[in-house]
């Protein structure tokens, strides 16, 4: 107070209603900004997780390819194994059958089994024993069956029997 007995009334730059409006607008703007920030944040996090997922997908795709390759390889292996197993079984059966065929009098020294041939080395007391007891069943199994006998010093015969299956196609 320099001169006046009274103090001036407070002059507001902005009146109460305008203040309320400004407050409201500021609040809304802040709210929207916060919302915007939240959304941006969400978008960002979703983006990053999408990226992550995309990368994972890539990795997964690569893995799938790898696994598919593996699978194909394993399938091949399996079929090979099955083949081997089947041929082994067949072989086992053939050997068993062969050994079943062989009578007690005849002793086998060496057997060479091939897919379409069977070569048997052994000793027989006589040619007839061989021919009757082993030769006839072999002949019934194989299309071609040739046996060569050698007389051994002890009077027994060593023999080599070469048996072959001849396919019709081969014949042609």
């Amino acid at each position, binding site marked *: 107070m320099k001169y006046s007995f009274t103090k*001036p009334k407070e002059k507001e*730059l902005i009146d109460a209603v305008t203040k309320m409006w400004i407050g409201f607008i500021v609040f809304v703007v802040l709210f929207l900004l916060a919302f915007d920030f939240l959304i941006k944040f969400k978008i960002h996090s979703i983006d990053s997780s999408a990226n992550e997922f995309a990368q994972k997908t890539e990795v997964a795709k690569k893995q799938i390819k790898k696994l598919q390759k593996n699978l194909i390889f394993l399938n091949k292996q399996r079929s090979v194994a099955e083949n081997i197993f089947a041929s082994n079984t067949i072989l086992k059966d053939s050997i068993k059958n062969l050994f079943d065929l062989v009578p007690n009098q005849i002793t086998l020294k060496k057997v060479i089994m091939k897919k379409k041939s069977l070569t048997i080395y052994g000793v027989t007391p006589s040619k007839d024993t061989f021919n009757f007891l082993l030769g006839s069943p072999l002949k019934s199994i194989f299309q071609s069956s040739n046996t060569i006998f050698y007389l051994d010093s002890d009077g027994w015969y060593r023999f080599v029997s070469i048996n072959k299956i001849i396919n019709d196609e081969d014949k042609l």
Partner: protein
Amino acid sequence: MNKLKRIIQKKFSNIFIAIISEKNEYLLTYIIIKNENIIKKDEKKFSMDENKQLSSDIIEFISSLQKKYKFVYISYLLDSLSQNCLPTCDDKKLKQYNINQKDIVSVCVKKTWMAYASKTDIKWINQKFKPIGLDFTFSSFLLLNNFATNAKQRNKNTLHMQYMENSLTILIFDNKNIVFSAFFKIPYKEFNFEEDELKLENDEDITSGIELENIESEEEEFEAFVDISKLEEDNFDDDNDILSSAQEDIKSSSIEDLELYGREVIIFKYLQSAIEEYYKSDNYSVAFIDDVIIYNDSNISNDIINMIENDLFLNVEIHKIDVREEIINMSIEEVDF
């Protein structure tokens, strides 16, 4: 924060309104300042209503300004008799002058003296201006002090008198401090000479001389409470000689001239009583007054100047002033604009 507000405020239109009461009307001057440039200045007159309250015209006018502009400062020049000055700024010394600090509102000047007014009057004026809201209430003494400070400093002892249509304010300085102050209201009531004359004849018990209550008591020297009604009558009574000479003139002069003459007499008597009081008092560091500077806001007649020069033997200097403009300047300073 406040500084920022001021800077922003300056960008807007600021209105400073000065209101003074004169006779039975309110005189209003207002200026509009924007960016430190005065963009408008205007004056208005509004008549008072019967109860001397603000008329609907003035309320309407100012309300329209308040609606239009954000910053409207309304200043009023206090014209109540309860105002005066004290040669101290110390509230504790008030008791010496028989004044209760709680009863007054004061403004300190240069840390040496204060202008004060009764709290009741300030409240009453605030109440009166409630419809429009009053920002500043200025003391006539501070206004006069501003004019006196602006006037050239002189070595001679000078009486400063602010002459307005409805009031007289008198200040005498000693160096920087104040040694005498007085405030008088000039009754605006139009004189009916005959009525007053009759009254004078009837009221014979009226004592002659001006009864400023405070003259009697040293403690109340500064309280120039003037009983207007008495003064009014006293003037005629006291000044019977002048009146009688006036009575002779009355036949030749018009009633208007007579009224004017009565007014001049009253003013002269006020001045005379003030000077008498000043000389009589022991308390004043009395120095002989050589000059009177009259700060004239109204139309002062040559008669009174002649009376002062011839009867009181004082040199008279007239300064033309614009009270309302000064009030506006003071309010601008108050706002720290």
